[in-house]
């Protein structure tokens, strides 16, 4: 505890020195607010995190223990989870103007919540459903029920999931902070009254177009994220993985008796993005019955209805919808097939790069201990950088380098996608390679499988299911990211914003510039349909095919 306090103070002192330096040497008027903005952003994320934990715990336990609740809540939340943050803008805008300055603060927190809450919910849901039937039966047989059952069985069982889910939410919060603190409505930026780091960074990059300041701010933000990760989350996750929180029935078979592997395991656990990856994918790909899907769709339609209604202050009629279709940017809709193909091409290129690099790094990180020492810290810091915040900085840098804004944006877009997609691939592949059963490795060793043959016959087939899981997730997050990455907002009135043609930038134009909710929802629907189609047509099939590759241990 003392050590923790000392580290915390050291971190705060470093932060103070950094912000003092920035405030002293940078001339822009907003910069003097840096300490206040930092405080505002950190408190916002912490508040949202607390709300998310409470919400995730209550709804997660409810959905996992109550059949009726799960029938309605789970698919609905899964649906909400798949909506990109931009899809929530129209809802938030209602509050924005209704409640004055407080309303804007409230809106930012709602937006953050829509990107932070889900991981905890799915983590809790998975962990509660993962309580072995014999443990549940035994505790019921001894008369544990209601609160006592939750206190003695459920809570200990879900603690690791809550902690890793909260860690994920924390990272997601920093990831989306820049989008949440930079709300645009009808081409106008609505800054939160108490400011924020995301707002400041967006201002530095979009408005002042100052590369140096952007990089400094990005480093500042990254320092906060990584330092907090090391200080708090790593400790908590360490406790989870070393067993302090581990429920008795969770047996970790990986690496037992194999030299120092156990230690490495503990160390690796920290960086897991697994709750989301494991539960969201298995939920989405396997579990839903048709009835659940129908309920979810009805609820979603109801929500759209409410939003349209609250915004237009009248019940949406065919007229309002038709009006939306006739207002800009509706003329772009005829180009939709081309725009979708262009976006798809970017995603495919980024996916290909991510896949190759992740397979290479993932296998090397496990098989060559020495390389692991180099790869892991990179991974740690890489995961800590809020990639969305990197966007303006990357664009400014490439634009200065190339002198052609559109080409620069095109490259920025693909780099952003790779940086975003690669983590899911990497972590899934990494944990799969780590989990190759000792007996299979021995078989390979015994029969002299080496190098290429070992990869071909043993390693690659074993990690195929993990590659599929990683692919589903990275495509999901890729679609989310491309909505931001194809479009560079303008902050000066009269200057058009910069974009590369694609469905993402069209969606931004509809949302930010015209506030055309009808087209916004139409495009979100199109994206959702593409994602679902790909899941059904490609991923689900592959996963089913690879199911029999599963090794019983």
């Amino acid at each position, binding site marked *: 505890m003392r050590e923790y306090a000392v580290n915390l103070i050291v971190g705060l002192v470093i932060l103070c020195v950094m912000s003092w330096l920035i405030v002293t040497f940078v001339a822009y008027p907003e910069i003097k607010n840096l300490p206040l903005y930092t405080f505002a952003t950190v408190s916002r994320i912490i508040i949202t995190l607390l709300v998310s934990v409470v919400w995730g715990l209550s709804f997660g336990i409810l959905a996992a223990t109550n059949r009726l609740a799960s029938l309605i809540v789970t698919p609905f939340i899964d649906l909400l989870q798949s909506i990109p943050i931009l899809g929530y803008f129209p809802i938030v805008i209602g509050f924005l103007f209704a409640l004055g300055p407080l309303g804007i603060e409230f809106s930012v927190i709602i937006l953050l919540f829509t990107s932070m809450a889900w991981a905890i919910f799915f983590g809790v849901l998975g962990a509660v459903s993962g309580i072995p039937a014999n443990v549940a039966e035994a505790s019921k047989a001894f008369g544990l029920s209601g609160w006592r059952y939750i206190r003695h069985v459920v809570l200990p069982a879900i603690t690791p999931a809550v902690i890793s889910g909260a860690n994920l939410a924390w990272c997601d919060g920093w990831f989306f902070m820049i989008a949440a603190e930079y709300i645009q409505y009808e081409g106008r930026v609505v800054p939160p009254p108490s400011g924020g780091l995301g707002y400041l960074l967006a201002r530095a990059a979009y408005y002042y177009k100052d590369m140096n300041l952007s990089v400094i701010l990005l480093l500042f933000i990254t320092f906060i994220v990584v330092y907090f990760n090391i200080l708090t989350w790593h400790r908590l996750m360490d406790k989870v993985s070393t067993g302090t929180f581990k429920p008795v029935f969770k047996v970790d078979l990986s690496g037992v*008796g194999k*030299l*120092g592997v*156990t*230690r490495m395991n503990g160390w690796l656990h920290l960086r897991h993005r697994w709750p989301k990856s494991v539960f969201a994918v298995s939920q989405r790909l396997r579990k839903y019955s048709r009835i659940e899907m129908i309920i979810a769709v009805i609820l979603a339609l109801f929500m759209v209805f409410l939003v349209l209604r609250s915004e237009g202050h009248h019940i949406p009629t065919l007229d309002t919808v038709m009006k939306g279709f006739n207002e800009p940017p509706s003329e772009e809709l005829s180009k939709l097939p081309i725009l979708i193909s262009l976006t798809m091409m970017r995603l495919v290129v980024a996916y290909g790069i991510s896949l190759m690099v992740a397979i290479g790094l993932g296998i090397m990180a496990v098989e060559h201990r020495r390389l692991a020492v180099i790869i892991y810290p990179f991974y740690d810091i890489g995961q800590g950088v809020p990639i969305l915040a990197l966007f303006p900085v990357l664009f400014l840098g490439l634009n200065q380098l190339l002198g052609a804004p559109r080409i620069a944006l095109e490259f920025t877009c693909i780099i952003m996608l790779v940086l975003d997609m690669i983590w899911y691939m990497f972590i899934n592949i990494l944990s799969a390679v780590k989990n190759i*059963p000792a*007996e*299979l490795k*021995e*078989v390979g*060793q*015994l*029969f*002299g*499988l080496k190098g290429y*043959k070992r990869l071909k*016959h*043993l390693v690659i*087939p*074993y990690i*195929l299911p993990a590659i599929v899981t990683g692919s589903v997730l990275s495509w999901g997050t890729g679609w989310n990211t491309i909505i931001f990455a194809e479009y560079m907002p303008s902050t000066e009135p009269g200057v058009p914003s910069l974009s590369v043609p694609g469905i993402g930038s069209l969606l931004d134009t509809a949302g930010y510039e015209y506030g055309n909710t009808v087209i916004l929802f139409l495009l979100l629907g199109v994206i959702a349909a593409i994602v679902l189609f790909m899941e059904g047509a490609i991923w689900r099939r592959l996963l089913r095919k*690879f199911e*029999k*590759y*599963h*090794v*019983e*241990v």
Partner: protein
Amino acid sequence: MSVLEADKVSKTFEMEKNKIPVLDNVSFSVGNDEFVCLVGPSGCGKSTMLRIIAGLEKADSGTVKFHGEPITKPNSKIAMVFQLFGLLPWKTSLENVELPLEVLDIDKEERTRTAQEYLEMVELKGFENTYPHDLSGGMKQRVGIARALALKPEVLLMDEPFSSLDELTAKTLRELVLDIWRDPDLPTNTFIMVSHNVEEAVFMADRVIVMTARPGRIIGDVKVDIPRPRRSHMREAKYFELVDKIVELLEIGKKNQH
């Protein structure tokens, strides 16, 4: 003339900062055509011993010699059958048996023929193109046995090969293994099996080597002089005497543990 010779083999595992000694000065030898069984309480290092013979693990001190040569790495003359079968789930029975042959650069036609022949021997004709996922436990172990034999090894190591099977299946497979051991046409005739089932050991082995609890030491080397086939002698006093003797040794071995 002994085929395998273990000489003062010791091994310690390091977990976190703890040192766990698993084998302490283990010496024994196995003759040609012999069927030897290693028994001992769980965690006594008998599986580790087997892995050292297979060349999968290295001893900290002491050596294991195969025809007088120290074993340092896996050798195609010594094959192994695993407790959990060790089949590659993404390969069919045939492909699983073919794989080690492919590593030895045997051409496609030849290895398919060999693999088919051995699958037939373990009575799996007709299941060549089935994936492990769709085989029962007993059938999986048959594939595991065929895969090991297809290499035409001299020595067959078996790590608790029947302990994850139900008793009826295990019984059938024990007979199959004994038939293979006795088959004069097969080059594989020295068998070492790890087991914690004393009756199984007495039923199958020529000699039962009894080990103590961790760190494993040899506490007894019991010759099983019951005529074969033993099925008809399993109700005789001699059989029970040997079982009792080994169980007694195991008890002493447990008490020796501090």
